[in-house]
């Protein structure tokens, strides 16, 4: 639309014709109050708070529905306008309980803020207020009717945003009420309830305290918490989240997860896991003391010093007697990049072994190799919100990558994006799809072949050859395509699909995975046959920059054992030591405990998992919310993780690795390049002008110093020392420190190095079982599930629900 100029309060403002006045004003710094308006949701014109005076128009106009046109003149702050807003507030407050002192929203309430601004607190009505009891709609959603101001935001975010439509307005006039989708008569205990995805978006979006969260309500006051912006640990989308933290006798506890500043890659969104499932951290089963197995077979709590000395001595001894090849190291998907990098560096340069792997939830190795030599082909999560056309093969974002699903829905709704889906099940996102292709079981490989032009595979994809043909035709006609790939596609299949995609000039790719740092674990080289940045292990060629890491590490130059081979080695008695950091392979890969009885096992974890109970030493670990560093989501969007909570007795994986190396007698300074800031490579010319969202005036200097690597890395436990090395050595991780420290995301496109033919890579196609996705649903999160009270409650709740399905396939009969 062409630009037009309007006048607001005497100020000339230019903006595209047709823009909503309320948005134009916001950009110009003129505040228009609004309850019902919410960017991205349909317009309501219901609350009448946004009224303004428009010249030559008889009635006050609502800024939320007024589309601007050339020459219009508005006044937003006249006595008449102020009076109208005040009167509307008075009317609302007349029936409002005004229980602010106990309301969860107190201090964060839009009604409070507006009353403060317009001074409408004087209530002149003598009549009693309408009262109704609070209702529990689900383990996580509570409703306090009297506080509801009927802005309909919850109804819209649930319907339009989530495509769930679990909330609605019932009755009319002053009896109007927001109701959930399971009426009392159909509910097991005769209380109305919600059968939905339990994302809590309705709570988030409620301007008042009418919808509150079951996990947070009446726990604290907002100003009594510290608010720490970090990244959700649960899925590969890596939503930015703000944790509300309170101090307790044994550390500090997370009491709330929300999405306060909405500045992250997830925009407005957070799913139920991001919002509630931080509570595993507070689980009483957490280990808070190191445990060492005694001759009688029991695990006994010991001091940190004793445990670490024991591990260090034992590792050194086994290394001496059995050599690095008898070691196995397994990392996790919720370690930070710094930790993952450190773990593999420790394995390779201290334990001298390439027997290192992690619980792979998607085949990032094949993904990176397929894109080797290309540039700019990696998609960001942000692309899912703007891409004109999207192909989704496999996966089920609604359950496994909820933020991706949210973005795709928004993109279809707002921009009319064309979404093409091929899946073996009728995933919910098909409702937004322009074309949905029902793929036969095991048909993704055939689909990739077919898309690439091999018509002979048609019948293995689907019996409906016409649908298949038109699906391919539609894709071929796209000029650019965002290709999202589920973790079902691996190895050669994955490569085939990417090869097809590469024929579309503007195609970009992402491989969807399960956990916060699944992608980072692979990027950082927790792989037996690839070094960080998917560079090859050997043979070393000093002239080849891709050999830089191998050169520095002095590590073995042939591939090590992968995760399954490590356990195979144990079975035949060839595994002297197993070191596991943040993974539960025994349960995940169904390992027979008996095979490990002659192996010295060290496990770093929060809980006594199936793997930890077999260990000789269990070291209590901090979780992602209790440490600092960075993570890379499925898309390669890098974000900072900030320490929010703390738990007495636990240590970060980073610190544990360093201390074990130290106890082994290794040169810790070589492992973690700490010391006075010496790394001046890439000092930014930005003199600290671009302060990030989270740096206040006071730490301007600190941010700049840190951002430019000028701060001394004071100890070997400082992850930023490790990040220096990652930045220096890992291809694709040329990140902007300032961006990271400002709490902003940045998209990295690891420019995978073409792999040499003689590199002896593990062919995932033949080892499909190496990749073991968690296949999480909305209410699970791998092994963490059972330690999260809220996820357990939600699963229980789901089981006792009546018949409405999230997918709307079955409806109440």
């Amino acid at each position, binding site marked *: 639309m062409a630009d037009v100029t309007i006048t607001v309060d005497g100020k000339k403002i230019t903006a595209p014709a047709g823009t909503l006045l309320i948005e134009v004003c916001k950009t110009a710094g003129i505040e228009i109050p609004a309850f019902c308006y919410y960017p991205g949701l349909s*317009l309501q014109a219901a609350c*009448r708070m946004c009224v303004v005076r428009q010249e030559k128009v008889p009635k006050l106009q609502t800024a939320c529905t007024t589309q601007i046109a050339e020459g219009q003149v508005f006044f937003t702050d006249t006595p008449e306008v102020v009076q109208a807003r005040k009167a509307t507030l008075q009317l609302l407050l007349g029936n409002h309980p005004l229980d602010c002192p106990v309301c969860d929203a107190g201090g964060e309430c839009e009604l409070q803020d507006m009353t403060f601004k317009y001074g409408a607190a004087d209530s002149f009505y003598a009549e009693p207020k309408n009262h109704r009891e609070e209702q529990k709609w689900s383990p996580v959603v509570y409703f306090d009717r009297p506080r509801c101001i009927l802005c309909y935001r919850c109804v819209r975010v649930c319907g339009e945003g989530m495509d769930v439509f679990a909330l609605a307005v019932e009755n*009319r*006039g*002053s009896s109007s009420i927001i109701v959930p989708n399971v009426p009392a008569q159909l509910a097991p205990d005769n209380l109305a309830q919600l059968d939905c995805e339990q994302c809590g978006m309705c709570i988030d979006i409620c301007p008042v305290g009418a919808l509150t969260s079951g996990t947070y309500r009446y726990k604290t006051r907002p100003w009594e918490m510290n608010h720490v912006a970090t990244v959700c640990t649960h899925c590969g989308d890596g939503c930015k989240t703000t944790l509300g933290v309170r101090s307790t006798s044994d550390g500090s506890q997370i009491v709330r997860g929300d999405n306060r500043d909405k500045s992250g890659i997830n925009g407005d969104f957070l799913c139920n896991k991001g919002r509630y499932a931080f509570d595993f951290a507070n689980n009483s089963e957490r280990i808070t003391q190191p445990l060492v197995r005694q001759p009688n077979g029991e695990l006994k709590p010991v001091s940190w010093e004793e445990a670490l000395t024991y591990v260090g001595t034992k590792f050194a001894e086994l290394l001496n007697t059995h050599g690095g090849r008898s070691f196995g190291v397994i990392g996790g998907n919720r370690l930070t990049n710094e930790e993952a990098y450190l773990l593999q560096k420790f394995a390779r340069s201290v334990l001298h072994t390439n027997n290192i792997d992690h619980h792979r939830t998607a085949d990032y190795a094949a993904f990176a190799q397929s894109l080797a030599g290309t540039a700019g082909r990696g998609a960001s999560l942000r692309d899912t919100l703007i891409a004109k056309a999207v192909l989704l093969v496999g996966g089920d974002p609604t359950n496994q990558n909820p933020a991706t699903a949210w973005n795709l829905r928004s993109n279809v709704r707002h921009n009319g994006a064309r979404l093409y889906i091929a899946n073996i099940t009728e995933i919910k996102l098909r409702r937004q799809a322009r074309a949905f292709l029902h793929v036969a079981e095991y048909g993704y490989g055939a689909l990739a072949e077919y898309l690439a032009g091999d018509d002979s595979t048609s019948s293995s994809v689907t019996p409906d050859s016409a649908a298949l043909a038109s699906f391919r035709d539609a894709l071929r006609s796209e000029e650019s395509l965002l290709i999202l790939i589920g973790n079902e596609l691996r190895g050669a299949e994955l490569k085939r699909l990417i090869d097809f995609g590469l024929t579309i000039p503007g195609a970009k790719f992402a491989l969807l995975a399960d956990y916060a740092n699944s992608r980072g674990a692979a990027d950082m080289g927790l792989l037996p046959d690839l070094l960080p940045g998917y560079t090859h292990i050997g043979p070393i060629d000093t002239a080849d920059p891709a050999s830089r890491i191998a050169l520095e590490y002095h590590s073995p130059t042939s591939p090590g054992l992968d995760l399954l081979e490590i356990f195979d080695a144990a079975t035949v008695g060839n595994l002297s030591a197993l070191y596991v950091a943040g993974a539960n392979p025994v349960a995940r890969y169904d390992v027979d405990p008996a095979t490990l009885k002659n192996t010295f096992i060290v496990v770093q974890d929060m809980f006594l998992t199936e793997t930890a109970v077999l260990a000789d030493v269990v070291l209590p670990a901090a979780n992602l919310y209790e440490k600092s560093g960075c993570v890379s989501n499925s898309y390669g969007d890098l974000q900072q993780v900030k320490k929010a909570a703390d738990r007495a007795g636990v240590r970060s994986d980073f610190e544990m690795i360093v201390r074990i190396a130290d106890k082994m007698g290794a040169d810790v300074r070589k492992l973690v390049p700490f010391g006075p800031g010496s790394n001046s490579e890439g000092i930014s010319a930005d003199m600290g002008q671009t302060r990030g969202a989270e740096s206040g005036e006071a730490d301007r200097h600190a941010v700049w110093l840190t951002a430019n690597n000028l701060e001394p890395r004071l100890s070997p436990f400082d992850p930023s020392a490790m990040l220096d090395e990652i930045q220096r050595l890992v291809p694709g991780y040329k990140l902007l420190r300032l961006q990271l420290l400002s709490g902003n995301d940045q998209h990295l496109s690891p420019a995978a190095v073409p792999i040499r033919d003689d590199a002896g890579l593990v062919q995932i196609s033949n080892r499909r079982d190496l990749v073991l996705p968690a296949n999480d649903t909305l209410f699970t999160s791998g092994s963490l599930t059972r330690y999260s009270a809220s996820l357990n409650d939600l699963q229980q709740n789901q089981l006792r629900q009546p018949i409405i399905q999230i997918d709307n396939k079955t409806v109440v009969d």
Partner: protein
Amino acid sequence: MPRLVSHPDEVIVLKRRFGQGAAKIDRYIALDGYAAAQKAIAQGKDAMPGWIIDTMKASGLRGRGGAGFPTGMKWSFVPKTSAKPKYVLVNGDESEPGTCKDHMLFREDPHAVIEGTIIAGLAIGAKTGFIYLRGEYRTLLNIMEHAVADAYARGFLGKNIFGSGLGFDIITQTGAGAYEVGEESALMESLEGKRGVPRIRPPFPAVVGLYGGPTIINNAETIANVPHILLMGGEAYCQLGSERNGGTRLFSISGHVERPGVYELPMGYPLRKAIYEVAGGILGGKELKAVVPGGASCPVLRADEIDIGLDFDQLAKCGSMLGSGGIVVLDETVSIVEFALRTIKFYQHESCGWCIPCREGTDWIKKTLTRVYEGGGAKKDIETVQYVAENMMGRTFCPFGDAAAMPTLGFVKKFRKEFEDYIEGKKAGTPLMTEEHILVGAGH
């Protein structure tokens, strides 16, 4: 059930077939029925739409639903071509207290509504018309459905109407009993099966209406006028009325009059005569206290304000409205406090609740007036009621808010003394009004 009434001063256009069994299609045809539609078709495909709209413009007919918007002009706003189907929507939700004229039309002359709908469709190029009846008008729905079926059987509706090669369908529909769905955009929502809540405008229905297609929405009386106008000619119809107010109108006169009923009077007819002559004067020879001139939403007139002509402009000039033509007459025994309460009770009950000022405002006025009525009032309550009503005016999402606030303001401003006396214990009038008094001019 409104009875058939008549008076020599009436000018009969719409009531021509009342009481003559015209619900039967043969009877209707015998009384010039469906001649207007055929006359329109006879103009030839190309000339027809223009001819109809020009005739309507010339007739000076203004919408009978309440707002009085010129009908011909409304039809001319519909775009000639449209990607989406166009529709005609007949508003028979008639729920304004004091109004029962559409009721008479559906009962006495259903084919006139059908024929008017067909002609409206021909004028804008619509293929489908909807006739939406108030939820409580169940018996009338039967009559309408019969009439529609008969019209299909004769080929007046269907794929090839009157052998013209043009198709037109009519679908009847009822509401679930909400006043607010009489508001045109809420009407469309209701018809589409959604909650009866208004839509944001623009876009206006003539451009984006029912199911997203260009739609004209007219009151049933407006539509029933159309065949008559085409037969008698626009100018002839226009001349029956007053300046800028063409034709005649059905007035529902109810309350304390000797002969309540629906009378067809020329626009501009004197209100005093309508009460004292046409309706036979005040019941039992009592004194007149006040008149609500156009349905419950129109500000009340005191007994000394009734020397005025019944048309849109004259009533607007004196601060009230002609509205839907429902004249409610109150005699000296009526307590205005109670009447005001009864009125706001209706609006509080019928508010759709979408927007804050209307939903909360009607509720607070009702609560406050209830307390006043029950003897617990204080003088400042009058201010509260006035303050709330003034702050609803012009601030709500749809005109309902004004419709509730305006009469309230009328009562407290024009009868403030009575409120004050009532509060001080000198209650004026004895409680009299029952729901029947207000809704239908039955009474005796």
